[in-house]
């Protein structure tokens, strides 16, 4: 990998332990502007943890994480500022339960970017429209379906104009009929050139949308390839075995 200015996320020799358990092993990874990178792998392979270390929701025990060429600090104002550049969409949506949908989307632009309320709301409504839930703006999260909540979560991330969005298994908590409405939004984001790092079990999404697929197991990156090459011809036995288990159904 070259160190050009268009690299947005760069991980160098990242290691992490949960007690004795070595959950991330010498991870090297870089994501360029406009790229869609999909991380797949069996449960417990460390892919979610990897995703969460990037905006430091998880600490690391070794290595470096650079966002836009700058090292992610471990705390303080600077960390908050850098997190604002990295959007995150969670498996469990994590919409703020006591706020309306509109407030969920405007909270950070007002609090962090100091946008005037009117402006933030106007933009939020546009974003909600873009993900197709603008009619729900006045409700609270509990009144929405999972698919709708996750689309709001995407709008909320977009409202901060992040340079990259991390998706941590965005469809794993959804009922089957709602998975596609979320994947469709993600696909259209990718088409618009959003840089995305996606941890998922949706192989079709990886096949269709990813520029690059990363296969993880036991806390290490085992393979990194274009989706065509990876799905047609996985190099490692473990990736082969994994693909057989997930593509049977």
């Amino acid at each position: 990998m070259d160190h050009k200015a268009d690299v947005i996320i760069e991980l160098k020799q990242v290691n992490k332990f949960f007690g004795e358990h070595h959950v991330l092993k010498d991870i090297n990874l870089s994501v360029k502007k406009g790229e869609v990178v999909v991380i797949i792998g069996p449960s417990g392979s460390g892919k979610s943890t990897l995703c969460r270390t990037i905006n430091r929701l998880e600490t690391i025990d070794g290595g470096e994480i650079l966002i836009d060429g700058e090292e992610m600090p471990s705390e303080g104002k600077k960390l908050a500022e850098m997190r604002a550049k990295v959007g995150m969409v969670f498996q469990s949506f994590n919409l703020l339960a006591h706020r309306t949908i509109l407030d969920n989307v405007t909270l950070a632009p007002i609090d962090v970017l100091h946008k005037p309320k009117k402006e933030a709301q106007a933009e939020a409504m546009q974003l909600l429209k873009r993900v197709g839930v603008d009619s729900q703006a006045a409700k609270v999260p509990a009144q929405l379906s999972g698919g709708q909540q996750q689309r709001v979560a995407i709008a909320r991330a977009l409202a901060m104009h992040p340079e990259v969005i991390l998706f941590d298994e965005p469809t794993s908590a959804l009922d089957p009929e709602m998975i596609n409405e979320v994947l469709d939004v993600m696909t259209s984001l990718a088409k618009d050139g959003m840089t995305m790092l996606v941890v998922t079990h949706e192989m079709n999404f990886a096949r269709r949308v990813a520029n690059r697929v990363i296969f993880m197991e036991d806390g290490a990156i085992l393979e990194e390839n274009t989706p065509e090459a990876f799905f047609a011809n996985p190099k490692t036995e473990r990736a082969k075995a994994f693909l057989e288990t997930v593509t049977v159904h």
Partner: protein
Amino acid sequence: MNTSQTSIRDILYEPPGVKTKRMIQVFTVLSFIAVMLLIYVAVRQFYITGQLDARYWYFFAKPTTWIFLGEGLAGTLEAAVVAGFISFGLAFLMMLGRINNIRAFQAIARALIEFTRGVPTLLLVYFFFLVVPQYGITLAPLWRISLPVAISASGIVAEVLRSGINAVPNGQREAAMSLGMKESHTFLKVVFPQAFRYVIPSLIAELVIVVKDTTFAYVVNFPDLMQNAKVLISNYNAMLPVYLVVAVIYIIINYLLNKASVYAASRTDSTTNTAAS
């Protein structure tokens, strides 16, 4: 049976069968008879000892009696509200100390919580009444009662608030932080408002204790309901009637507070029951 609502009873116990239903009926009748008997015995005893005599009750027909008791009630509510606010402020600080990462703050907060929970309210009342003036600090009667009552409740309120903080799903915090919100803003704008909603019923329950603790006002000569009751008693030499009436007033206040907490609990439930978990 009410099907629209599931009570704790429905969750804990099987629906009663034929035999159990019979038993429930029998015990309902028996306990009703027992309660009636008790009331009869009590009233009869009052009658025998002359407590129902008109001379012990006539002054309740005078408006001035009720105005006087009303003033006492206002005093009680004033002391309770002031104590409630102070207690909440102290509790908030102790809670912050307790959830802080700094060990020293944790230790101090923990010690304060244990102290305030452990010391009897009356002891604190005496402290503010007898010891504090020794240092040349003279407090108005309202503060002499509100401060000790507030301090006495603050430790428990601090722990209630902390339990609320712990009940907020971690994802809420993570979501706010991942949007670039500072730790302090995340706490004040996202975590605490939710924690507060969770604990409103417990806070109201604590307010009931605060209301009851304000009865120590008689020690410091603050004109609360209890103090004014004592004045009535010495004027009319009618201890039992006055205490009975005052007890009923306290019961009504606290019943209303409990109603409010049940209402608050049901409201917070409906807005957060599926809180992104």
